[in-house]
């Protein structure tokens, strides 16, 4: 029965993916993308990757969906049709993509020998990190450099988005309050949902040390709650020149870097932790990162500043 469920889920996923590509209306295509993201979370659960399922549900559908829908709604009136490929070229592209799919599928169907795995190694050293969740150990101990650089990439992307602002709006605030027409029911919703969301975000960040979850997932939920409150007009979007905001954005990566550099003196090297304090240090870094991630993701989804405050 489990196999039947998997097949059903896969048929639905591929069907929805194909539908997203062929559907005419760009707003509907974006909605299908959000639905696809929500279903993808179930697929990750089936692959025993609960951490990834949480991330996919939070980012892949929620925050990315809002970003893309906002863009699709804005482009609705404009003539966004570029030059369409000629029919023969479309056929050539279809054949090319079919060949790529078929070869990937062939690789998947080849009899597998012992698959390479780092799982035993990850479990062996788990005690030294003090964590119970091997994925968190990979993210914050074994491959901490990747995670640190990823935070830098997020900040760079935000700098890129901000630099697209027109000159007159520089130093202003992104406008979110005209995204959804304000109504009392939306305001009510934006007052009901965030308390649940914030509790869940704190739980996610905290439980990430031992169970699936962590700073990414917690931070994304916080970002979503922040966006909702701003969309409902309960809280105004901050101006990008705000000193507090700038500190919030860099606090997580900066603390991570400081802890990493301290590793030279108190442990084996850069981004190494002394085993006795490893868990405490990682949890502190995760909390700071969750706050910075929330601010960065929220502002990335809010887009470049558009008006002066």
């Amino acid at each position, binding site marked *: *029965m*489990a196999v*039947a*469920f998997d097949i*059903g*889920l896969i048929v*639905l996923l591929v*069907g*929805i993916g194909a*539908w997203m590509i062929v*559907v005419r209306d760009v*707003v*509907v295509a*974006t*909605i*299908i993308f*959000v*639905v696809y993201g*929500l*279903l993808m*979370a*179930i697929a990750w*659960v*089936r692959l*025993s990757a*609960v951490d990834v*399922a*949480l991330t996919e*549900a*939070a980012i892949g*559908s*929620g925050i990315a*969906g*809002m970003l893309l*829908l*906002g863009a*699709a*709604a804005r482009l*609705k009136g404009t003539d966004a049709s570029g030059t369409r490929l000629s029919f023969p070229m479309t056929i050539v592209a279809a054949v090319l993509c079919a060949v790529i799919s078929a070869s990937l599928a062939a690789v998947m169907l080849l009899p597998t020998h012992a698959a390479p795995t780092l799982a035993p190694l990850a479990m062996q050293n788990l005690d030294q990190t003090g964590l119970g969740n091997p994925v968190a150990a990979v993210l914050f101990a074994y491959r901490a450099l990747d995670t640190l650089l990823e935070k830098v990439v997020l900040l760079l992307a935000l700098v890129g988005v901000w630099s697209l602002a027109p000159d007159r709006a520089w130093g202003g605030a992104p406008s979110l309050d005209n*995204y*959804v*027409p304000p109504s009392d029911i*939306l305001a009510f*919703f934006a007052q009901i*949902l965030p308390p*649940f*969301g914030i509790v*869940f975000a704190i739980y*996610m960040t905290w*439980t990430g040390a031992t*169970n*699936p*979850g962590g700073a990414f*997932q917690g931070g994304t*939920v916080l970002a*979503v709650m922040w*966006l*909702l409150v701003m*969309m409902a007009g309960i809280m105004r979007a901050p101006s990008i020149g705000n000193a507090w905001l700038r500190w919030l954005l860099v606090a997580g990566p900066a603390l991570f870097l400081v802890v990493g550099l301290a590793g030279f003196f108190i442990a084996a090297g850069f981004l190494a932790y002394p085993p006795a304090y490893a868990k405490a240090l990682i949890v502190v870094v995760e909390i700071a990162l969750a706050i910075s991630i929330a601010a960065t993701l929220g502002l990335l989804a809010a887009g470049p500043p558009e008006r002066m405050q």
Partner: protein
Amino acid sequence: MPEFLFGAALFILGTIAVGLVRILHSRQAADCMMAAQLIGTGGVAILLLLAVATDAPPVVDVALMLALLAAFASVAFVGGLQGKASAQAEDHRK
């Protein structure tokens, strides 16, 4: 018991699939706004069934995440489609 739970999950997945085709095929914008709600309830039911069937309690967290984010996505859908809905209402009046 797991077999039965997987079967129920597959069954609910089927109802979601039929509902999705109906909703997303509709010409009315308001129908599209329901998509997140449909996945929100059906997907949560599937995840809860999977959590018990595979004996993986953390999957319940994914269900909670899905419910939370589906609610947010619904707000985004209403925002993204509002212009379209009002334009269609005008078309209707003509």
